[in-house]
C-alpha cells in the first residue's frame, strides 16, 4: 500500500534523525491496529506494522512515527524508555489490586496499564502535533479517534468493569476520561466526556490534563510528563526510565 506524502515525509524525518531506515509493513497477527519497534539492540531498522484492513493507516503509521521523532529529537543521552524491574512490577501489580490475580494475568494487566500510561500521556502531545501540523491526515485522525472513543466508552459497561480490580479500572478510566476530554475540545463535541463525568472522573481527568499545560511541550520533557501522570495515578515506583537500549 502506498502511503500518503505526509506520512512519507515523516518517515524521512525519522530516518534523518535516527540514521536508521523505517520499514512499514502489514501484520495480520497484530492484536492492535498498529505497532512500532524502534531500532535498537542491533535491529537494522525501525519497524512499524499495521493490521491489514485497518482504516486510517496513514494516521496510525504517522502516530507511531511521531513518537520516534520525539524520541530522536532528544540528545542521545536523554533518549529514555519506560521499563520495570521485577520488584517495580510487583509493586505495580499490588497498586493496581492485582496481587490475588493469576500471575500471568496480573503481568499482562500491569504491562497494559504501563503502556497506556506512556502512550496516552505522550500520545496526547503526538496527537495534538499531528492535528495542528499535518492537516492532510486530519480526516483519518478524526476517524480513528472516534473509533477509539467509542471503544473506550464500551469499557464503562458495568459487566466489564466488574471483571477487574477497582484500582486498575479507575486508573484505566481516568486516562480514558482525559482522552475523552481532550478530544471533546478538538472535535467540538463535549458529549464524549459526559459519561466519564457522570462516574466522577472529571477531576482526575482535569488533573492529568493540567500536566500537559504545566510540563513543557518539548520531547525532552516527555519522561517528566509520564512521571507526573504516574504520580496522579498511583503508579509511583512501578517503573523507571532507562536510556534507550544501545544498538
Amino acid at each position, binding site marked *: 500500500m502506498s502511503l500518503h506524502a505526509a506520512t512519507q515525509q515523516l518517515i524521512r524525518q525519522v530516518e534523518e534523525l535516527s540514521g536508521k531506515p523505517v520499514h512499514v509493513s502489514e501484520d495480520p497477527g497484530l492484536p492492535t491496529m498498529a505497532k512500532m519497534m524502534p531500532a535498537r539492540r542491533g535491529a537494522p531498522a525501525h519497524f512499524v506494522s499495521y493490521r491489514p484492513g485497518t482504516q486510517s493507516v496513514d494516521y496510525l503509521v504517522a502516530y507511531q512515527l511521531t513518537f520516534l521523532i520525539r524520541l530522536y529529537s532528544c540528545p542521545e543521552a536523554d533518549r529514555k524508555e519506560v521499563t520495570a524491574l521485577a520488584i517495580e512490577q510487583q509493586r505495580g501489580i499490588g497498586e493496581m489490586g492485582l496481587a490475588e490475580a493469576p500471575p500471568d494475568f496480573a503481568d499482562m494487566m500491569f504491562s497494559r496499564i504501563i503502556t497506556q500510561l506512556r502512550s496516552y500521556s505522550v500520545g496526547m502531545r503526538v496527537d495534538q502535533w499531528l492535528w495542528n501540523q499535518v492537516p492532510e491526515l486530519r480526516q483519518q485522525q*478524526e476517524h480513528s479517534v472516534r473509533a477509539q472513543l467509542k471503544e473506550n466508552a464500551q469499557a464503562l*459497561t458495568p459487566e466489564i468493569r466488574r471483571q477487574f480490580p477497582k484500582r486498575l479500572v479507575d486508573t484505566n478510566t481516568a486516562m480514558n476520561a482525559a482522552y475523552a476530554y481532550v478530544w471533546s475540545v478538538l472535535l467540538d463535541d463535549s458529549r464524549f466526556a*459526559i459519561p466519564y463525568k*457522570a462516574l466522577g472522573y472529571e477531576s482526575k481527568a482535569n488533573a492529568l490534563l493540567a500536566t500537559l499545560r504545566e510540563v513543557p511541550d518539548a520531547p525532552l520533557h516527555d519522561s517528566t510528563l509520564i512521571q507526573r501522570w504516574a504520580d496522579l495515578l498511583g503508579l509511583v515506583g512501578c517503573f523507571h526510565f532507562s536510556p534507550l537500549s544501545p544498538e
Partner: protein
Amino acid sequence: MSETPQEVHLSLAEFDREQLPLEQRAFEGDEFRDAVREHLAQQFATEGGAAEVIVTGDRIIIRWMDAKEGQTLTTIGIDYLKAGETEKGIATIKEALKRDPADHKAAFNLGMALTEQGQYQQSMELLERLLTEHPGHAQSWVALSVAQAKLNLYDACVRSLQQALSLDPKDGHAHKNLGALLASIGKLPDALVHMELAVTFLPGDVQAWLNYAKALEESGQSARADPAYQKVQNLDATGNAGKIAEEGRTRIAAQQFHQQGGTKRAIAVEYCLSALQKFEGMPKPEVQKIAFEIAMLGSRGLDLNNPSVQYQLESMPGKFSGLQLLCIQYVGFQIIQPSLDLGFDLSEEYQVALGLLGRCKD
C-alpha cells in the same frame, strides 16, 4: 442523517451523586433514577445534542447520534430539524450559536424553528439581531416576516417582505407571503401581482396556487381562477387543498351556470326530469351507488361547459355530459340525503322538473 449511533452503559451505583443538585443527592429509588435521567439528558442537550437516557434498576443507558467527521454542530441541528426532531434541533443549534454567536446560518435556522414551535417573540428578536448584522440575507427577512405575521405586526411584516424582495426579486416565498398578507387586508390587486409571481417562481407549491386561485375568484376573475384551482387539484389530488380547489371549481361552475341562464338552465331541467324518471321506484342503495360514483368522478373535475365531453359510469349505462351527470347527482342526493349541500344549486331546476313530472303523471 449522516450519523453513527453511540450507546454507553453505566452502573447506576457508580453514578457520582455530586453531579446532582445538593437537594437531590440523598434521593433513593425512582426519585434518584429520575434525577439522574434528567441530569444526564440536560447535560447532553446543553453539550451539543440531545440523547436518549434510560435509567433501569441498576443501570444507566445513554444513546445518542454521533455526527460523522466534518459535520458542524449547526449542520447536525439542521438535520435534526429536517428529520422532524425539532426539540433536539433547537437545542443543538442553540449550542452552536453559543459557541459562535456570529453563525448566521444557525441563527436563521433557529429563528425558523422557534416560529414553528410557536415562540414568535423569541424568533423575531433573534432574526432582528441577525439582520442588523446581515441585512443582505433575504431569506432571513422572509423568516422574520413569518414571525411578525404571527404576532399580528402586519405593517412590519409587509416591510420585511418588501425588503426581502428588494434583495431577491425572484424569492417565490416572499411573493407568496406578501400576496397572502395583502389579500388578507383587502388589497387584492396588489396581492394578485405577488401571487402570480409566486406561482411563477414556485410552480409546484400547492398553497401558492391555492392562494392565487382564491384571490382570482374573489376578485371576480373566475375564468382564470378555474385553471388555477385545477392546478391545485393536480398537485394535491387527495389532500385538503385539493378538496378546497374542488369546491372552488364547483362554485365557479355553478356561478357560470346561473349567469348563463336561458337554454342551459332549460337543459338542466330536462336532465333533472330525466333523472327523476330514472330513479322512480329504484331502491335507495342503487340511487346512492350512482350518486356516489358521480361524486367521485366530480372530485376529479367535470367539464360543465362543453357537452361534447362525455363521461361513462359503471353503475349506469350510457354516455353523459358533465352537466347531465351533475343533474343526476343532484336528483340522486335529493332522494337519499336532501339536506346535503353539494355546492351547486340546482334547486330551481329541480323544482320545475318535479312539477313537470307531476304533470306527466297526470
